[in-house]
């Protein structure tokens, strides 16, 4: 499997390139849209939420942008990833290539976008006077956890979507719900001691966002133990997802 993927590495590369550059090709701002979009979202939340919540964190804008940028990567990966096999029906029917390239390139291009947008986080950290801590070096660990989790999800959803097209709408709804169950606009301490806190803990994206916040915002050591357990779990999840994908992929050309 690894060997075949290695042989097709150029396809993976061009696919990632196509995902990143092709999406906004023809628009005036081009690739900048990948960064303008989350910034606008942050702006809306930054204006609206201080009205709803009585007291917000100090540096609230920086606080939410650290949550929103990884979340954008996650929801884009899930939304695009779920339909990626269906969207590439044309080439799936006509050429053989390892199909898992498609979901992998969706998550990878999202990751590259996110890594670039970390510059925005950096700018916010400097402007708000929070500054940096050496814990930033743990960023790759958190990114890896999120990468594996997203990939595991879309390996399964993209394959099932071919057989049951409803899945993309269900997934959209679930992801929208998950947004509120993930500490993006609020900090998990607000719910300490309530059942909601347990819910957040069970949500992998909750652990991941908290870890981003620890290294960027609170400048403290993230809960490395739970992060490593998460990576292990997500890796296993990916392997299971891969087998499901492989099994279902034999019928792709006939079903799309």
């Amino acid at each position, binding site marked *: 499997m690894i060997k075949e993927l290695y042989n097709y590495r150029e396809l993976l*590369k*061009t696919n990632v390139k196509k995902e990143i550059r092709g999406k906004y090709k023809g628009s005036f701002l081009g690739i900048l849209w990948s960064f303008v979009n989350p910034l606008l979202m942050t702006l809306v939340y930054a204006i609206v939420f201080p009205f709803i919540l009585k007291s917000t964190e100090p540096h609230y804008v920086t606080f939410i942008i650290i949550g929103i940028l990884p979340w954008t990567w996650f929801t884009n990966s899930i939304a695009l990833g779920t339909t990626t096999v269906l969207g590439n029906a044309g080439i799936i029917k*006509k*050429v053989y290539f390892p199909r898992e390239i498609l979901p992998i390139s969706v998550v990878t291009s999202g990751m590259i976008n996110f890594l670039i947008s970390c510059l925005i986080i950096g700018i916010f950290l400097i402007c708000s006077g929070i500054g940096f801590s050496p814990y930033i070096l743990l960023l790759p660990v958190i990114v890896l956890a999120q990468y594996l989790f997203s990939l595991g999800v879309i390996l399964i959803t993209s394959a099932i979507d071919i057989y049951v097209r409803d899945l993309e709408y269900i997934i959209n709804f679930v992801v929208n719900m998950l947004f509120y169950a993930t500490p993006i606009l609020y900090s998990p301490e607000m719910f300490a001691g309530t059942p909601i806190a347990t819910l957040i803990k069970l949500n992998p994206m909750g652990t991941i966002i908290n870890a981003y916040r620890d290294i960027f915002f609170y400048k403290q050591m993230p809960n490395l133990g739970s992060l490593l357990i998460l990576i292990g779990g997500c890796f296993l999840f990916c392997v299971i997802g891969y087998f499901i994908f492989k099994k279902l992929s034999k019928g792709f050309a006939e079903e799309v």
Partner: protein
Amino acid sequence: MLKNAIVVKDVTKNFKLYYDKPSTLKERLVFWNKKKADVHTVLENVSLDIKKGETVALIGVNGSGKSTLLKLMTKIIYPTSGKITTEGKLTSLLELGAGFHPDFTGRENIYFNAAIFGLTKQEIDKRLEDIIEFSELGEFIDSPVRTYSSGMYMRLAFSVAINVDAEILLIDEILAVGDAHFQEKCFSKLEELKNSNKTIVIVSHSLHSVKKLCTRFVWIHEGKIKMDGNEKVIDEYMKVCG
């Protein structure tokens, strides 16, 4: 003893014929007890050995299963029963221009398209000049593909496909590309590949050109191999279907 390039062993392929295929959850739930589908057997117990360096034409009327057999060889679809093994790098030209992105230039699309065939960057770099020259696109190579005429599009696509340098080449009815001059060029390129000991399998209805190119002819009729041999197969086929 020549080595086998493609071995097809007892392959049967069934397609399900849905009369109103339920693809959403609602339809599945509402019509759960509806008769699912009819099974249509496209290929039945087909066995075929293709030796290395052979140039084989698959002939037969529409719906006889030739294209299905070709798709099975490329692993786009999988047999219901039986086994297919191939030896060596394989390229299939079932459709030209797979993976082309209209907003990118011809040059960029060469990379996309060749990458789908499993080439690495260095391999593509090496062939780039050949591909551009073969396509005769000249300065248009740096314009976006959406500005191309359909003839230019096909020429570029064919140039990439033919320059992939695979050991096994599977071709489905794409010899009719471009004008007479370009067709002739494609044909002589195929001749060249044939002489350099590549294995070629062609599905075609243009009996005249395959007769010139191929050395072995397999007549498929209603999912079974009816005849397999030299030029006489074509003559027989012409008698029945011509």
